[in-house]
Each structure stands twice: as C-alpha cells, then as structure tokens.
C-alpha cells in the first residue's frame, strides 16, 4: 500500500552501501542512513542491504527490529518519543502522555490517521534535568506540561 507512494530510491541506497560495504560491522550505520531516505526500512531495502553485505535477510531484519530507532513499517512524519523512565515518571510524564494521547487520539505504538504523528516510548533521553522530556524526530523538548506539549504539537 505505502509501497506505491515510496518508490525505492536505489541510487541513494547504492551510495550508502558503497560507502560502507568495505568496513565490517557497518550494518547499523547503513540502516540508519537508509532509513533517512524513506523514514522507514521497507522489506525491499532490507533485502538489498542483505544482498550487498552477503548476510541473510533474516539477520538484517532481526537487527532492524532490535533497535527502537529503526522502523520496518511506515511511521508518521513526526515520531514523538516520550520518556517514561522513573525521573520523568515522578515529574509527571504520565500526564504529558495522557495529553498527547488525547490531543492526537493515538496510543503509544500508533500513528495518526493522517500519517503525521507516531507516538512511542523511549528509554531515558538523559534530559532528566528538565524532566519530563520527549523527542520529536531529532528535536528534544523538556520541562513538559500538558499545556506546553499541546502547544508543541500544534506548532508542527
């Protein structure tokens, strides 16, 4: 379904593969850069990587599904990663989460119907000094409150 909209950008992927092919153990780097092309790692992308590196596709898939920053299905344009670790928890992360859930109408692990936002948990972002904290794509936000998080979401 999503495939039709996202043609495989083979040329970019080949560049990435060419860059890393010779250095062993670069699978994570390749996956990270490959994901940047389409926002997720499609089956075709994983197969191409497997083929080029000469490792089984099942292994590439296993690595891609182990790390929480990798996605094997299409996600929203913006991924909201909210920290629910203890320091954020005791500073009210649950209220922030509840506000996000209410504002967007989705639960962690889900994507809004318009494909704009995905919501998920992250482990500690090391922003405990400004807890509760979250990330939206590469951007970090701290000192969250219900109001502030609503404001942030609306600004996207």
């Amino acid at each position, binding site marked *: 379904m999503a*495939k039709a909209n996202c043609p495989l950008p083979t040329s970019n992927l080949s560049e990435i593969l060419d860059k890393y092919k010779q250095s062993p153990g670069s699978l994570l780097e390749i996956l990270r850069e490959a994901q940047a092309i389409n926002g997720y790692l499609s*089956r*075709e992308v*994983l*197969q191409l990587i*497997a*083929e080029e590196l000469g*490792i*089984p*596709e*099942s*292994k*590439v*898939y*296993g690595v891609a*599904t*182990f790390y*929480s920053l990798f996605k*094997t299905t299409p996600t929203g344009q913006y991924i909201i990663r909210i920290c629910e670790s203890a320091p954020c928890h005791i500073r009210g992360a649950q209220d922030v989460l509840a506000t996000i859930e209410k504002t967007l109408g989705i639960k962690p692990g889900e994507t809004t119907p318009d494909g704009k936002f995905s919501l998920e948990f992250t482990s500690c972002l090391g922003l405990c000094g400004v807890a509760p904290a979250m990330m939206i794509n590469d951007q970090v936000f701290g000192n969250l409150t219900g109001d502030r998080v609503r404001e942030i979401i609306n600004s996207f």
Partner: protein
Amino acid sequence: MEMVKVTVDGQTVEVPKGSTILAAAKKAGIKIPTLCHHEDLNVNAMCRICVVEVVGARTLQAACSQPVSDGMVIITNSPAVRQARKMNLELLLSNHPQDCLNCVRNQRCELQTLADQLGVQQQRFGTKTRPEYPKDDSAAALVRDPDKCILCRRCVEVCHDVQSVGAIAPANRGIKTQILPAGGVDLNNVACVQCGQCTLVCPVGALYEQDHTERVWAALADPEKHVVVQTAPAIRVSIGEEFGMEPGQVTTGQLVAALRRLGFDRVFDTDFTADLTIIEEGHELIDRLNNGGVLPMITSCSPGWIKFIEHFYPEYLDHLSTCKSPQQMFGALAKTYYAEKAGLDPKDIYVVSIMPCTAKKFECGRPEMSSTGYPDVDAVLTTRELGKMLRQAGIVFSELPEEQYDEPFGITTGAGVIFGASGGVMEAALRTVYEVVTNETLPSVDFTAVRGIEGIKEAEVDLKGTKVKVAVANGLGNARKLMDLIKEGKADYQFIEIMCCPGGCIGGGGQPIPTTNEIRKKRIEAIYEADADLPLRKSHENPAVKTLYEEFLDKPLGEKSHQLLHTHYTKRNKYPQKSVG
C-alpha cells in the same frame, strides 16, 4: 592434555582444562538439567536452567558455558540452585501454551520432561505476558508454531551455522522476541529449503513436519485404493530408535513386517530406484565426460539441496544431474510400469514414501513431479510419523519377525542401501561407472575415502587412464563452500555428491529425535553393515533393474527414461517475495 581437579558435590574429578562444568559434573555421574544446550551446536547459555553454585562466585553459573578452573568447588544441588532452576522453568512455562495433550511432541518434549524432573506442579504466574502468535503452516513440509517457542535458538544455529540458509532468525526485542522468517512473513515466502534440521533440534513443538499420517490412514482405509509404500535406505537403520532401540541397528526385516501390518498392499524399497538412479546418473556422467557436457555434474537426489541451489545458485542449475530422486523415480514407475504389470489403473494407486526427510514432502508436490498426470508420490511420512502410526496401530516393533520386501521393487543391492549415508551415492556411482567404462571388475567395491561424517571429502579415481576427481559434501554449509569454489572457478572436479543434511539422509530432518552427530555416526556404521550383508553390491547387477530396462525402459537415458525419470529445475529468488518494479 593439561588436566585440572575440581570438586562436584563433594567428589573430586579430573577433567581436561577448559572443560565445562557440565562435562565435569557428567564425569562425577551427575546429569545437570539443560534446555537450550545442544551437543552439536554453539553454547548460548540463555535458558539459565543448568545453573550451579560455584564457591566464591557472586551469582550462579551456567554449567553449559562456564569452564572449570583448577580447584573449583561446584555444588549442583543446593536449595538456591533448585529454586532458581525451577523459577526459570516456571517463567518459560508461564508463556507456553498448556496444551501438551494436543501437541505433536507430547511425551517427547524436553520442556515437559524438565517440568517433571524439576518438580513443577503449579502455575504461580498469571496469564501470558507475550503476544499470541498464529501458527504458520504455509510451507509444504514444515509447520512453525511460534506460540510454543521457548527461544532456545537451536533452530537458528542450525539454520544459519550448519545449513547456511538463514531462513529464520531472532527478531524484535524483550518479551516480544520471536524467531521469525525475514520480514515477519510466512515460512513459504522466504528462501527456506525445508530440510527440517530445525525440527530435529527444537526441544518443543514449535517446529515440526506437516502431518501426512491422516491422509495415509484414509488411503489405507479406502477399498478403492491400492496403497504401495517405499522405504528410503536410511529408515532401516533409524526406525528402531522410535521404539527405544539403540541407534545403529539394522531393522530392515521388522520394518517390512510393520508396514505390512499397517495394511499396505505392497511394501517396496526405494533402494531399487536408487540402483536405477545409478544406472541413469552414471550414464549421464559418462555422457557428459565424453561429450563435453557441463561439469562438474552434481547429484540431484536430495530435495533440500535442490531447493537450496535453486534459491542461492540458480545460475548453476545445469550442473545438476537431470535425474529425479529415487523417491520420485519410484512414484513414476509405480504408476506406469507397476500399474501395467499389476493390471491397475494409475488413478487407483496410492504411493506412500517413508523418508528420513521433510523436504521430500515439498518435492512430491512439485508440479513437474506428475509425469503420469497424477502425482508420482501421494504422501510422504517421516521416520517419526511412521513411528507415530505404528504406535497408534499398537504394533510392537521390537517383537516383529523379519520379512522380505515385495517384488519387483523389493530387489536391491548394497549400492542402493548406501544412498542413505553421505558419500553413498558417489560410492555406488563409482562402483558402476568404473565397471561400465573399464569393462573390468572392481578389485574392491569399498571407496572408503568418500565415507564418513566429515563435511567435505575428496577422492580421485583412475578409470583406466581417465582420472576422475570427485567431491562429496554433506550439510548445506559445506555445499555452499563447494558452490563458491565452482563460482570462483577453483573446482576441478568432474562429479560432486551433495546431501542437504549433515551425515547424509541418515541425519535427515525427518529422522527420530534426538539426532546428534554421535547418533549419525552409528547409523552410518549400520548402513555400511547392511551394504556388506547383501549378496549384490553394485547397481548394474540388480536383476530387477535389468528386467525393467528389458521390459519397459529400453535403455539408460532413453525416451521413456527421459519422460519418467528425468526432470528440470526452477530458478528461484533468494527473496521469493521480491516485488517487481
């Protein structure tokens, strides 16, 4: 070898330096319970069942992975050890379906056995904390039941490290960890060769063969059907294990008797078509040698190997002998030659194979394997499934008399028998090719260089001036090595035998559980024992095969042979689901 002294539960034992605690305990007469550990595979130490106390250590140690050191004091049976083992087992059980009675591995399950052994008698945890997973029965030969999986990863080890197929691997993380085909799709949609080696190492009922017993029972009960059965060479040296016999016993006669008692109309032997394969394949080799055909020629009896080369080396399919496997040759002849002789309509003949193999279930369903318009073979039972049927029928295997196969497909030679072991096809072929090419009798029929469990074996045979260099590989990891040599142009062989499973068919994915390398060796010995016991040792001396050519086939590689006994192959993708465009 440097030895170290350790104390296990108060007993001092001396073991080689670097031995595991598990080995040291065994020497002290203590069998530490294990679950993820398998003697032929890498040690992962993940289940944490085999933990023991080591005096001075802060935590309990996994006996399967921890090497002993001199003076180590080990306690294998303390309250802490017992409690920890039981707790870890309870944790596994708490996410394992509690339907042992309906499980294919009921009473043959390592988890169930452990639960009994460690005294688990109640379920203290709540409902499942991991997702429910649906059963995957998409593949022709294998069933995955991930709900039952306890994540020991033996299947992954065998699929990647031994077979170099890599169809399944751990995916996801934490409690959601699963052993999955790539992309989380069904097994049928990845390059799985259906060798079933995973089913041999699975401790529970998470991986097993597609059941054909019900359809066989139905055929046996159908008065319209003339049900014939063929037994692969490897069955006669392994079926006894299903009934508690020691590995390595030849039980050909009891096997025949058992099948008769199950109600088969004729009990035949795949060894017969193994002999036939040698005639056809031998002539094909001679033809390729003489007429500049594609070399090296590679054997084609092993369906797991065929699917492997189709997926991973499709550009080398013309190296394969065009001969069908003995199972399929048998089916094709049963529904033509035999039907004619017995005055039966091929549609009424039902062909059952007893195979040490799961991939044979896939092979019999290949579209090109219906040369009469009907499938050559209708059902394939693994050794395990035959064991199950015999138990259901109440047949006490060990007390059966020895009986003889039916004619004409029961007349066989030792060359057919050794098909069951790695190197056997090669040896059988050499016995015939030598005599056909040189017109001389072999001084000795035993080509011991190609025998044994070693992964890759080589030999050179002098056919009176023509030197033929041959190689034999067992296990797909070794097959891959040979294929890569061919790819690099470094293989100067004329003839290669490849068997999918370690040790050859005696180590096949449909064999009794456990099948370990030690057991494989014993079955191999038994195979050569059966060979040596037969009056005829060379395929071209099989009188029934000679008659078959006289009455029906005319000549090797002739028109009828071409039609019934030879086949073609399919180029497959490494990524079967690859989308186009």
